[in-house]
């Protein structure tokens, strides 16, 4: 039995990039979609119908979803048929397939608002849509064929008055059967000829043909709102040449303003823009960002009716564009506001993608030196198969780096890259790469992985597994006065290590850090760029050292011995004090 909860579905979620990580964004309210109105307020207007029909369909849809359709039934009869068609475009399609039940649910809501609306709204849908909705569920039989049927089959069929046409609802789904019962009851009462015509027509049409036609019409309409095809959506993530943009905009000296503030760079830019721009300009910039977010939906596997994910896509667009602005304007807020006004959001988005891609590309190349199987991940990423790449990271990196660093690496290589923000209830919460600081964190994450690989490679270990344990064992070796080498401890050595006084232990740790620093300075295969400060990296080593101190102080030797026992070649239980 096929299951939705399969590995394949997980790959799909990874591939979209918006849903598989816990993450939070802190964006100014002005950047978010504010396109909802109080529909009940509109109802109280004298020209309520006109006011409602003047709403853009997305605004009407979002407002209905926010306030609940069943609480806004009086609105439904007032909306235009174009608005209803657009709402079905947003809400009644999944993966390019028509969700018949969704349409029936909408039509039932219309019936609840005004009985005859189930008929009029259905009748005014495009002809292809009417047939696509009825065709799969109705079997129509003309009187001549009816006579050829067995008694049992005849009994199953319903009849139009006078036996002009016979039909049956083919679905066993009670909701669908109820829809056709309600629809036909009202339609027969309003327009018998139409009722017969639609059933006869739909019953004799080849299956799926009309739905395929409708999908084409719908795609064309959706592109007007920015919901482009999958291929076009993927192309937005491509890197671009930054030379022309650099020449045009990167003219300022780097300022430190953004780094010293608690607000994100985009918050500062938007705050300045909202004070100095007129409203139409601000609205234009916002709507262009919303349009771009819509364009990313196909690649991010977000349906237009999934409002929460649409908002997340928009948050990512603003965040990544914040990074691009900070880089292009060298941290100068006024310059950034000017760039925001003049450059298209897609250009900014691709600038950010290019900056990040540069780091990711370097990182992967370096990882491949230590872990050759990384080439498969690189291939997946080059083809924008983020889901497969991340699944491969789970398999390959999980046992090497442990779950936390692997999660962070997966977030770095997500369609929408993210960096660790904090931990919540034992789970990592990420944040979008919205600034140069965040870009540094992304680099730190890659370099932490590379640095651990580098250190372990210096201990001449044959198998890359559980790097943290191997580094910790090598650290103990140094603390005991030996080299940074990964060997098993003897009981005597454990006893000596355990009984080290505070002063001796502090001294040993200082020696350890200076030794590691020297090793990392000498061989810089872990470094992705020159002149990088290694504070973040040394702090990840400090975490490992702190773990050791905890083991030592608390006497949790099980943890240490478990680590040791998990390493192969256990017969070689010697420890060379000075090799």
């Amino acid at each position, binding site marked *: *039995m096929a*299951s*939705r*909860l*399969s*590995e394949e*579905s*997980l790959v799909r*979620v*990874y591939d979209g990039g*918006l*849903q*598989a*990580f*816990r*993450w939070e964004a802190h964006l100014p309210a002005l950047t978010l979609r504010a396109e909802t109105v109080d529909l009940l307020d509109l109802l109280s207007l004298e020209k309520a119908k006109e006011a409602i029909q003047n709403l853009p369909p997305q605004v009407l849809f979002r407002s209905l*979803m*926010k306030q*609940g359709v069943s609480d806004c039934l009086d609105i439904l009869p007032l909306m235009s048929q174009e608005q209803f068609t657009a709402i079905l475009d947003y809400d009644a399609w999944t993966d390019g397939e028509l969700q018949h039940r969704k349409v029936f649910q909408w039509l039932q809501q219309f019936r609840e608002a005004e009985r005859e609306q189930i008929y009029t709204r259905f009748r005014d849908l495009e002809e292809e849509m009417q047939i696509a909705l009825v065709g799969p569920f109705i079997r129509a039989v003309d009187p001549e064929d009816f006579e050829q049927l067995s008694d049992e089959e005849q009994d199953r069929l319903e009849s139009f008055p006078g036996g002009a046409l016979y039909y049956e609802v083919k679905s*066993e*789904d*009670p*909701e669908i059967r109820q829809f056709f019962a309600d629809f036909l009851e009202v339609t027969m009462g309003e327009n018998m000829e139409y009722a017969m015509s639609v059933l006869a027509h739909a019953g004799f049409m080849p299956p799926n043909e009309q739905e395929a036609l409708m999908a084409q019409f719908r795609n064309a309409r959706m592109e007007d709102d920015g919901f482009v095809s999958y291929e076009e959506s993927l192309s937005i993530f491509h890197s671009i040449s930054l030379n022309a943009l650099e020449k045009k905009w990167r003219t300022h000296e780097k300022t430190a303003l953004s780094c010293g503030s608690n607000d994100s760079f985009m918050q500062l830019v938007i705050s300045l823009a909202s004070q100095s721009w007129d409203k139409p300009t601000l609205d234009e910039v916002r709507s262009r960002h919303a349009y771009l977010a819509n364009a990313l939906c196909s690649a991010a596997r977000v349906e237009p*009716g*999934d*409002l*929460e*994910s649409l908002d*997340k896509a928009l948050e990512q667009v603003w965040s990544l564009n914040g990074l691009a602005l900070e880089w292009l304007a060298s941290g100068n807020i006024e310059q950034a506001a000017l760039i925001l006004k003049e450059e298209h959001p897609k250009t900014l988005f691709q600038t950010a993608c290019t900056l990040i891609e540069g780091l990711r590309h370097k990182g992967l190349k370096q990882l491949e030196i230590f872990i050759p199987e990384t080439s498969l991940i690189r291939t997946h990423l080059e083809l924008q198969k983020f889901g497969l790449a991340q699944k491969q990271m789970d398999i390959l990196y999980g046992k090497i780096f442990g779950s936390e660093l692997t999660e962070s690496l997966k977030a770095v290589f997500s369609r929408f890259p993210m960096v660790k923000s904090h931990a*919540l*209830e034992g*789970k990592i919460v990420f944040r979008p790469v919205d600034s140069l600081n965040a870009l540094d964190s992304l680099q730190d994450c890659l370099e932490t992985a590379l640095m651990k690989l580098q250190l372990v490679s210096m201990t001449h270990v044959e198998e890359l597994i559980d790097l943290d344990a191997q580094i910790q064992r090598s650290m103990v070796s140094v603390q005991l006065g030996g080299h940074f080498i990964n060997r098993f401890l003897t009981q005597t050595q454990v006893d000596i290590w355990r009984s080290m006084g505070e002063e001796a232990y502090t001294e040993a740790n200082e020696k350890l850090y200076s030794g590691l620093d020297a090793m990392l300075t000498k061989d810089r295969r872990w470094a992705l760029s020159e002149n990088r400060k290694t504070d973040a990296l040394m702090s990840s080593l400090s975490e490992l050292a702190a773990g050791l101190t905890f083991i030592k102080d608390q006497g949790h030797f099980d943890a240490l011995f478990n680590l040791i026992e998990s390493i192969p070649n256990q017969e070689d239980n010697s420890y060379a004090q000075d090799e």
Partner: protein
Amino acid sequence: MPKTNNEKLMASEVAELTHILDRKHAASLGDRFFSIKVDSDASNAFVTVTLRNAHESFFYPVEGRIACKSQELSPKDGAMLLLDFIDVYFEEFFHDRQDTWLPIDWAGFNFEGFEFELKGQVLNKRTEELADLFLDGKINRDEILSALR
């Protein structure tokens, strides 16, 4: 999920399914997480998927039961069907700004041609526990307020 020939879901499979559920909805979970409990006998399968946080101030058990034998399903397939439907439900729940609710008492549903029953109710077990302690005279009003802070 791992393929086995067993008629029942194994503990490792349940753990894997829980991981997938957590992953699929990660961005919407906040401080909450899923747990899954599966029981079955020869004729029926019972599934509880609980969305909760560590303090249990949000505790949402969604329970499902299906008559497998009469619908020619193995207990494992019955449990998987319930889990699939509950996954669909949570998808709706998160997409609908967490405003799609199930009946609090058993109610019939139909999915992929099979019939089963579901129920679910959001509880705040943390406040319930504090209320019990308060009624037993073990804590006072200030302690409740401080615990809820």
